[in-house]
């Protein structure tokens, strides 16, 4: 897994709440058997019309907005467990998603793919949307070591939560399987000791 320590980037704002995984990547694009190429269809039905023509109003089609940070409304990633949602976001080139609330399964999937979900307060998110809209070139800093997100030019800063274990994994580029494989003997002992029906 790719490491994540710090990131400085401009951001792409999608100011919509409850963005579900069917919007991030519609089910009809889940037919691949590998992890790459999903970025093409990220936000497919918001991004393109039925003839495949880009919709000019959508932020991903607006050259003004670019960068490795996606900023989105509350309850991002609700809906299905499809990890394709996280893959499509990373495949497109994002490294970090900022929202004021994340759905559980999406958050796990993001963390398992080196994509950092940064949960901020509603008021910080509002300020962030305003800042990006007013100045699309504005730089945002994400520091995982210090657990802070800031907009230095506006003196805006907030700390965010992440559990210690996942922080350690992201900073060192480790994944859960490495850890679980290392305790396989103990898992085997568990299966021999515990009766199940």
């Amino acid at each position: 897994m790719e490491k994540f320590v710090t990131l400085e980037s401009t951001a792409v704002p999608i100011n919509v709440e409850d963005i579900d995984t069917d919007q991030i990547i519609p089910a009809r694009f889940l037919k691949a058997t590998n992890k790459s190429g999903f970025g093409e269809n990220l936000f497919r039905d918001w991004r393109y019309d039925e003839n495949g023509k880009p919709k000019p109003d959508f932020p991903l089609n607006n050259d003004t907005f670019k960068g490795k940070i996606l900023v989105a409304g509350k309850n991002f990633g609700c809906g299905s467990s499809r990890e394709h949602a996280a893959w499509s976001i990373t495949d497109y080139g994002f490294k970090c998603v900022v929202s004021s609330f994340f759905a559980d399964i999406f958050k796990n999937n993001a963390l398992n793919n080196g994509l950092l979900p940064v949960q901020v307060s509603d008021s910080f998110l509002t300020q962030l949307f305003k800042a990006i809209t007013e100045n699309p070139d504005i730089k945002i800093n994400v520091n995982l070591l210090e657990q802070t997100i800031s907009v230095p030019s506006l003196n805006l800063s907030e700390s965010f939560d992440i559990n210690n274990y996942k922080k350690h994994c992201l900073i060192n580029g480790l994944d859960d399987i490495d850890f679980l494989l290392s305790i396989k003997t103990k898992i085997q002992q568990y299966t021999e000791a515990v009766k199940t029906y």
Partner: protein
Amino acid sequence: MSKTLFDKIWEKHVVESVENGPDVLFIDKHLIHEVTSPQAFEGLKERGIGVFKPENTVATPDHNVPTIDQHLPIRDELSRLQVKKLTENCENYGIKLYGLNHPYQGIVHIIGPELGITKPGMTMVCGDSHTATHGAFGTIAFGIGTSEVEMVLATQCLLQYKPKRMRINVEGELKKGVRSKDIILYIISKLTASGGTGYFVEYAGSAIRNLSMEARMTICNMSIEMGARGGLIAPDQTTFDYIEGREFAPKGKEFEEAVAYWKTLKTDDDAVFDVEFTYQASDIDPMITYGTNPGMGMSIDSIIPENEPNKKALHYMGLSEGDKLLGKQVNYVFIGSCTNARIEDLREVASIVKGKKKADNVNAFIVPGSKQVEKQAIAEGLDEIFKEAGFQLRQPGCSACLAMNDDKIPKGEYCVSTSNRNFEGRQGPGSRTFLASPATAAVTALKGKISDIRVFI
């Protein structure tokens, strides 16, 4: 110390706890399907490792399969490849597969319970968010991503932080025409599409206790639609009676031993939940959703709230504040999905449409949850009732719930659907979904417009 049912099952499955970190949770049963597993098997290959306990995983194709002519090769090349990949992976790693023409094939959350694979006190996972369905048996069951599918294949464990505990009590008698789907749509409308995030829910109270297993599964199934990781219901005699005699249920003395253990699976009287809600069954009417998340629901005879903040959703649905939905023309009715495609659902639809005809404007199709449900429906003559009423009975799969196959609702069209999600484009690009119970769907198909089952029965 007093414990909740959730805590008891969780603690029994903790292999070890990482200091200041998550628990290593052992998974008793892992269900896989063709869409969220291929990349997990690829991962195993890249790491050069095998499947740790192949006997603990069961596979079936469901998300992406056609619902007609299942005996023929799948026409869509990518879908065909995905199903082929599942078959190859199961063969290579020694995993039990119920393939497309196997008598046990079906939607993964339908076949687990009906085969007796799902049992109280278990931990179960699947790369699908509706895994919560199995919670109806007093099981910790939840959806996972593909990286986690790979973890379970490789080690039969997951690293998990324990969610918070929520209890939702529904007390009293349900009113005429109100079904379990209405209960869960009501709860989600109260708690919103994110109100359960971070929690694992226990459903309790007399109204829940009086439900059949099928109806309990509908409730637990939609736990994820309020953001909850899962939902469970303590097992009782209804649960044990359902399990007894099923293919993979314990038999004879082992069944008795199992029941003795299962009877211990309940929340202690003075156990404390992080949050608790109580609703009265008598406050619940037949429900319908009007927006683009399952939390946007209301009584079927209500009007869309005047202060609905989600203007984008109403615009997508072609609706306005103050509109009523009763009487609205609907050209598609879909009865299916892991939420409502069990035999009890099909029986209910048949009882409503028997001897009647669907409205001319309506395309009504019924997709049974499994081959077993299909077989049972035919054995009971339900297929003839559906045919005479002008409903198509298809073959098992997830179908128009997520529209990965050809079963799509056309752009702009309304569909009353017994499935679980009304997201934009969920049932096909531009489709507009009204979630409701099978009873509401059936009566809507007969009338050609959204109708109230209470007026009908």
